């Protein structure tokens, strides 16, 4: 194929432009990581750095010495783990019967699920339900109101529908109960999609800011996202961290960098898996609706 001069110019500009776009996207991460290892004076003195003059760990030493931060980290890890298990379990158990075309009442239930994607009661009625259930200031409020994502449910249901029915029929003939078929035949065949949606759900809970904001007043039950916001956006350092020692001045700027890094690192560590699975998930979702 012959390429003209115009074509070559276009290619060059295109490559430069896209590389620039990628750089703008990732540079803030390098800045934050470098900043978290920089000294307080360097942060205020130098405009932009991707490599600190001298590596110091003051900021990390400080946040890991305060039990408020460690507690929010542990709370977030536990809520994410427990929440993901509950969400995946509820999604799978609901999706399986809905994948059976012969189940009486299936279409009504499906339509009721789809309707929730178009219309919802909104923030205040949901809040009042959570309150009337006595879940305010409990970790359940961070998990149960989001237990099933209707989009994910429909995708998983479509996936189950594609599984060969003969295999399940054979299981039933061999004396498996319906739950046995689900447990021993369907679930082992669904490992990739279970992994995908476990990742979907865990990232969503890890990143959730609205639920703790709405349902958790007790600062001792704060999650990491609430904590990050308090330190970086509200800049309310002293109240949030708790005073360790009145004579010690915390590295105020450095802290902001360090809490962002700690809240982001787990996502970045999982990113290669996420990217692979998420891309697949979004495409399954878009093709089959």
């Amino acid at each position, binding site marked *: 194929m012959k390429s003209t001069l115009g074509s070559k110019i276009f290619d060059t500009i295109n490559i430069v432009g896209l590389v620039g776009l990628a750089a703008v996207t990732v540079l803030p991460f390098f800045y934050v990581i470098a900043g978290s290892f920089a000294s307080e004076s360097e942060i205020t003195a130098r405009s932009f750095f991707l490599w600190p003059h001298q590596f110091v760990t003051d900021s990390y030493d400080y946040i890991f010495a305060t039990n408020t931060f460690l507690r929010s980290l542990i709370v977030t890890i536990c809520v994410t783990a427990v929440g993901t298990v509950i969400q995946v379990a509820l999604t799978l158990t609901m999706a399986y019967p809905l994948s059976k075309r012969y189940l009486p009442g299936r279409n009504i239930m499906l339509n009721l699920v789809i309707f929730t994607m178009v219309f919802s009661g909104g923030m205040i009625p949901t809040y*009042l*339900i959570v309150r009337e259930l006595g879940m305010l200031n409990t970790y359940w409020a961070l998990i149960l109101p989001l237990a099933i994502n209707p989009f994910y449910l429909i995708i998983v249901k479509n996936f189950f529908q594609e599984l060969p029915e003969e295999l399940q029929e054979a299981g039933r003939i061999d004396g498996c109960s319906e739950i046995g078929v689900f447990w021993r035949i369907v679930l082992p065949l669904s490992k990739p999609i279970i992994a995908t949606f476990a990742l979907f759900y865990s990232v969503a809970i890890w990143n959730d800011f609205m639920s703790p904001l709405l349902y958790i007043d007790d600062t001792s039950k704060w999650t990491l996202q609430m904590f990050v916001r308090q330190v970086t956006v509200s800049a309310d350092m002293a109240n949030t961290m708790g005073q360790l020692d009145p004579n010690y001045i915390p590295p105020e700027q450095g802290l902001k960098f360090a809490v962002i890094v700690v809240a982001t690192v787990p996502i970045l560590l999982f990113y290669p898996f996420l990217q692979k699975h998420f891309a697949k998930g979004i495409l399954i979702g878009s093709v089959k609706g």
Partner: protein
Amino acid sequence: MRIRIFRYRWLYLLILPGVVYFAVFKYAPMYGVTIAFQDYLPFLGFSDSPWVGLKHFEALFSSPDFPRVLGNTLILAALHVVFVFPAPIIVALLLNELRLSVLKRAIQSSIYIPHFLSWTIVASLTYLLFAMDIGPATQLLNTITGERLDVLSDPDWFRPLIIMQTLWKATGWGTIIYLAALASVDPNLYEAARIDGANRWQQMWHITLPAIRSTVVVMAILTAGNLLDTGFEQIYLMTNALNRSVAEVFDTYVYFMGITQGAYSYSTAVGLFKAVVGIILIFGANWLARRFKQNGLF
């Protein structure tokens, strides 16, 4: 019928927790919307609070907050349509023209990352980059404009910041769906066009763009339905005392009136108004798409 239901009892048992979830956390709040027509009192609950008709809607429409909140919401929605919606289409088209597949994959991997971060992290990064005096982005802007800017609290900067954040977080991820549509184009079409003497611009105009048209239409309908969903978390995190006049949108207004002020019925009415407009928009967009002989969503 009874026998059939009994036969599938185990399936119904499996589905039960999910059905309870939808009943409690999705349908009970829908019933709870009725408090928009009541003076809701917590100790009387959803069923016994006194009915007041359209009082709260009248209060909303005559409130001085209404034009401001509606205006802010609509302006952000319009900016979204103009800047955020086309961005992934353009980037996908450019990526599609990239022939070095290694480079293409590296760029894709980089621009997907922000999608996985929370709005808290995005807001925090913005606060660091645009901090007055010491933020690198502010310093750059100061050098260009020759002024000493306070980007984070200046109301004039609120909308540009919101749009920049959304572009940064969503553009890369948004390309996935368009790239998938582009990947399904038959390469023979390009071959034939080249033989006919089409240059790259003409190929893009006559082959590539028509190929993704239906995807664009579907995405446009979905966007229309969510037009008033400005994103509670993002706006809430970027709102401060100084920029509130331009920052307050329906989502944050519902939160402030309902959760912090305790005006449950009034804020439910605001939320309901927004939801109804959203539904009208999604059906309207769908109707428009069908009129122009495109495949609608439904």
